[in-house]
């Protein structure tokens, strides 16, 4: 790749002239705090753009859907800091209904834009661009006349066209400060509908109402719009992206009116949890975020409860919370702190220094799918801020909380598995000081683990020594490190270099220098017993020190070819022939895990004995030498099974690669063997292992904390490992397999465990401990995220699938969660009615008709066909009151 091309590849990226002019205009308006009337309001600005602006800005979604068009005018500035008060008007559904007749009467005089008929269904293909037209006065008069015939008193509630239409046209106009979009649609059910949508630019709040009309109406109005004599082409072409997303944008805007209720419910639920002393939170302070580091902290119980009380007053204390909550967010400014709730929802505290406005943003999950905004007063904000009492700071400047949490969890697991009999940290610190302050007398050499960061001239895996002068420099550097802050068992980060030491007392140990690219932090880890499997003690290095180390190591004295000469320590011992291995059944701790599979396994004592026998029954022979097949073994990466052994007198690790290579890691060194039969036999050992820890890693998708579940598979079980997950280097598996993304997308079933009840330990990432409960096997296998947890008697613990509740307290929702049992279905079950109306069946109706044996899963039609014939049930709205449609199972 040519560096000059890199330098010049973006030279031609320039802000378009028209955008510059617009930005200048807007900035001038904003800084002078002028009225909106002074914003560019020329006739060239089609009203549709403003509507799209409001839509796009309010939901901060699909901004590419808005293309560049929503930026072509000052409307965007209505949503900028300090300017949100410029335009303040809103309209309720009722107002809109009342206004509609007058509005259409006035249609002839409004500036009106239209998209003539287009179709998106089977009858045609969406054009690449769409032309908006303005209409002649005569044309508008005719349209107005037609629209006035509609009875706006009787809307159809909650009708959702989604994709059930074949043709429609759109009108855009402004009336009484409100922007309207009128969609006239020919639907696939043979009916025609008018959908009236409005948005108030100041609040970006909009409503929709749908009215059914005759097909004749559609034909007449459409004919008007189709007649070129009536319209003049504005020559405004909207790109296909906008066109395709128009519905989505509007749907998100108009279709989320339950969000306020949902969040209000969520807050109340959280409050209940706090009352039950079951809540824990985690904060990030981002105050002055332009320069200050991010700090994570939690609070002690009393402080938190005080904070929560204030928050509770500010939020729940409102007389009309639901109407105060908005689905939009317009304030600028910065996130000053974020409060993570244990269910992974979180609240951001935005403070706009310009307007002084403070908004709380409630997010129901990472990924920012939904959010809700509530404004609080400056005083409330200050009270909240004052109530924040950081108790535990950790990982300052550490931006990846997930990594922190995961690292802590993993560290705890590793400590559980390998720790327990390790020396006291203070002893190690003393030992470290002794070792590292006498490095001049030590004997050592190095091995490069990752050459990308610091060792451009070294190859990965290169062993080398350094000249005495450099050794003295290194000794001096190590002497000046502060070992008093050493901690136990570092588990994160990438290894850059390993330093093998034999100190003045002939004690062997090794040091890894690591760099964690997530946090840009470097560490030194020391394995004082010289065993790679076992406790390590770590120290954070500042990056300057890291670079100094790299500088010292940049000029090797002698390079070694990994093996013979490189093994300056106890060469004979290194090349001892194995077996025998010790009796691995004596191992106090044993852990096996396939490197790229999401679980750990722990064999029981019998299986350990079998494994010992297996390891010792094989002919291992001499390890492979450099320059032979060793180079093909992909020792560092690739699919493999890893086994860790920790016995009183020995600790080692064996990695088995499915290509047939085994890497035996012991005493800080590695030997590679080729023995496909043994690999295959060890692979089989994984199947009957006793305890499985499952880690679901969809980190690559949403950067969410990983969930880890322990499953006790005692009893009858069969654990099947699908080879697809292991495949990165196995040629038989064909192309590269993106495990993480497929796992996240749920497109691969990676394991099956057949037991009746599974001990599930959900990881509480905020409190960093495991919560124990049981999962139903069937549910577990279907979807670990959404199933319920049960107590030992099989009674639901209340965790798991959660449905929203209507004003009467009835649960409602789609009962298509995989593994959901009929008895756990919501009170109102989402279905599509006979006339394509979406709505809800009463669970009690299904029960009364003996039709609750199964639930509508992914295959709705299949489920419907499975129901008793002759069933005719009402389809209700979510309140279970208004009948929207019927649901019948009469078959011809």
């Amino acid at each position, binding site marked *: 790749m040519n560096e000059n091309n890199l330098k010049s590849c973006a030279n031609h990226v320039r802000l378009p002239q028209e955008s510059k002019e617009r930005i200048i205009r807007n900035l001038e308006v904003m800084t002078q705090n002028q009225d909106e009337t002074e914003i560019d309001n020329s006739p060239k600005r089609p009203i549709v753009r403003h509507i799209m602006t409001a839509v796009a800005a309010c939901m901060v979604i699909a901004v590419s859907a808005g293309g560049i068009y929503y930026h072509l005018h000052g409307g965007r500035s209505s949503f900028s800091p300090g300017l949100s008060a410029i335009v303040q008007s809103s309209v309720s559904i009722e107002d809109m209904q009342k206004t509609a007749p007058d509005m259409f009467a006035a249609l002839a005089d409004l500036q009106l834009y239209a998209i003539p008929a287009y179709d998106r269904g089977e009858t045609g293909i969406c054009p690449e661009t769409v032309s908006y037209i303005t209409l002649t006065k005569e044309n508008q008069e005719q349209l107005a006349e037609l629209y006035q015939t509609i009875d706006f008193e009787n809307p159809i509630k909650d009708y959702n066209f989604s994709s059930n239409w074949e043709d429609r046209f759109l009108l855009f106009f402004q009336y009484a400060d409100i922007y309207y979009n009128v969609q006239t649609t020919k639907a696939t059910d043979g009916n025609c509908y008018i959908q009236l949508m409005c948005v108030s630019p100041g609040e970006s709040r909009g409503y929709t109402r749908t009215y059914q009309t005759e097909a004749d109406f559609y034909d007449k109005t459409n004919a008007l719009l189709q007649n070129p004599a009536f319209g003049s082409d504005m020559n405004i072409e909207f790109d296909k992206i906008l066109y395709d997303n128009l519905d989505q944008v509007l749907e998100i805007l108009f279709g989320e009116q339950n969000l306020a209720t949902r969040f209000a419910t969520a807050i109340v639920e959280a409050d209940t949890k706090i009352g039950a002393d079951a809540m824990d939170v985690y904060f990030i302070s981002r105050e002055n975020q332009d320069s200050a580091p991010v700090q994570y902290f939690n609070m002690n119980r009393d402080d938190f409860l005080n904070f929560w009380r204030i928050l509770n007053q500010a939020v729940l204390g409102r007389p009309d919370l639901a109407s105060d909550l908005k689905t939009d967010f317009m304030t600028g400014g910065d996130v000053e702190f974020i409060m993570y709730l244990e269910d992974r929802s979180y609240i951001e505290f935005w403070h706009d220094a310009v307007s002084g406005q403070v908004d709380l943003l409630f997010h129901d999950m990472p990924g920012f*799918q939904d959010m809700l905004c509530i404004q609080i007063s400056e005083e409330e904000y200050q009270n909240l801020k004052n109530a924040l009492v950081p108790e535990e700071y950790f990982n300052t400047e550490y931006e990846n909380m997930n990594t922190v949490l995961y690292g802590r969890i993993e560290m705890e697991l590793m400590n559980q598995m390998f720790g327990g009999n390790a020396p006291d940290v203070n002893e190690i610190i003393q030992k470290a000081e002794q070792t590292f302050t006498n490095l001049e007398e030590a004997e050592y050499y190095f091995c490069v683990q990752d050459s990308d960061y610091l060792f451009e001239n070294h190859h990965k895996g290169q062993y080398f020594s350094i000249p005495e002068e450099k050794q003295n420099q290194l000794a001096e550097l190590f002497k000046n490190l502060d070992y008093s802050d050493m901690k136990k068992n570092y588990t994160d980060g990438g290894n850059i270099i390993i330093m093998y030491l034999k100190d003045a007392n002939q004690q062997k140990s090794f040091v890894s220098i690591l760099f964690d690219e997530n946090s840009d932090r470097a560490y030194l880890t020391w394995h004082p017993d010289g065993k790679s499997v076992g406790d390590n003690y770590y120290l954070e290095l500042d990056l300057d020190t890291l670079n100094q180390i790299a500088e010292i190591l940049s000029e090797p004295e002698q390079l070694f070819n990994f093996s013979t000469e490189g093994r300056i320590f106890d060469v004979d011992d290194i090349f001892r022939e194995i077996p025998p291995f010790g009796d691995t059944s004596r191992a106090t701790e044993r852990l096996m895990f396939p490197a790229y599979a999401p679980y750990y396994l722990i064999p029981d004592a019998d299986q350990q004995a079998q494994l010992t026998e297996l390891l010792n029954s094989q002919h291992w022979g001499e390890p492979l030498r450099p320059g032979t097949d060793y180079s093909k073994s992909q020792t560092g990466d690739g699919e493999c099974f890893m086994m860790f052994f920790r016995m009183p007198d020995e600790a080692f690790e064996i990695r088995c690669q499915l290509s047939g290579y085994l890497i035996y890691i012991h005493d800080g060194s590695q030997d590679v063997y080729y023995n496909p039969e043994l690999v295959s036999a060890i692979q089989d050992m994984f199947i009957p292992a006793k305890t499985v820890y499952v880690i679901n890693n969809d980190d690559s998708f949403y950067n969410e904390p990983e969930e880890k579940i322990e499953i006790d598979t005692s009893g009858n079980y069969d654990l099947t490992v699908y080879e697809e997950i292991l495949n990165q280097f196995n040629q038989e598996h064909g192309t590269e397999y993106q495990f993480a993304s497929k796992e996240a997308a749920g497109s691969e079933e990676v394991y099956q465990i057949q037991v009746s009840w599974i001990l599930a330990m959900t990881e509480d990432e905020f409190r960093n401990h495991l919560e124990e409960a049981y999962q139903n096997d069937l549910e577990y296998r279907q979807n670990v995220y959404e199933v319920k947890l049960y107590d030992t008697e099989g009674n639901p613990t209340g965790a798991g699938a959660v449905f929203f509740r209507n004003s009467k307290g009835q649960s409602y929702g789609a009962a298509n969660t995989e593994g959901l049992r009929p008895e756990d279905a919501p009170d109102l079950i989402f279905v599509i009615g006979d006339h394509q109306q979406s709505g809800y069946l009463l669970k009690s109706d299904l029960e009364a008709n003996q039709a609750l044996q199964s639930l509508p899963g992914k295959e709705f039609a299949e489920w419907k066909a499975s129901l008793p014939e002759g069933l005719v049930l009402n389809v209700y709205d979510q309140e279970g009151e208004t009948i929207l449609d019927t649901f019948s199972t009469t078959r011809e």
Partner: protein
Amino acid sequence: MNAKDLVHTYGDMLYRICLMSLRNHADAEDAVQEVFLKYLTRAPDFDSPSHEKAWLITVALNHCRNMLRNQRIIPTDPELLHPPENPPEQNQIFDALMQVPEPFREVLILHYIEGYPLKEIAGIIGKSTSAAKMRLSKGKRLLEEIYRKEYLS
């Protein structure tokens, strides 16, 4: 500096940075406007034009990060982002650059495209020079990997 001078002096540069961060024309324009608004309402006194420029870049990068963090940014089709004057090979690099993860892309853009030395980049991204160097090194490697995979394999 008034709005007009500001846009004419720094508009292209900030737009370039924001576009390459957000990968969407509309969002990039929006970000540029927000950064300038911050400048006009909240900017401190600057010692020099270079200080001013660095402040703008820092604010722009922070703003883009916030947008990426808090909004669902839908990247535009990469081809639509291509500068029309670019020869094909430069567009390939441009595309590859867009695929480099954010923290590394920032540093690559600042170093190779905006011509900043590592020390100043460190100031802009709020990290040490060593960290900037690390990111640049890793970023370059990632860029090469992506480029090789996309166009040379």
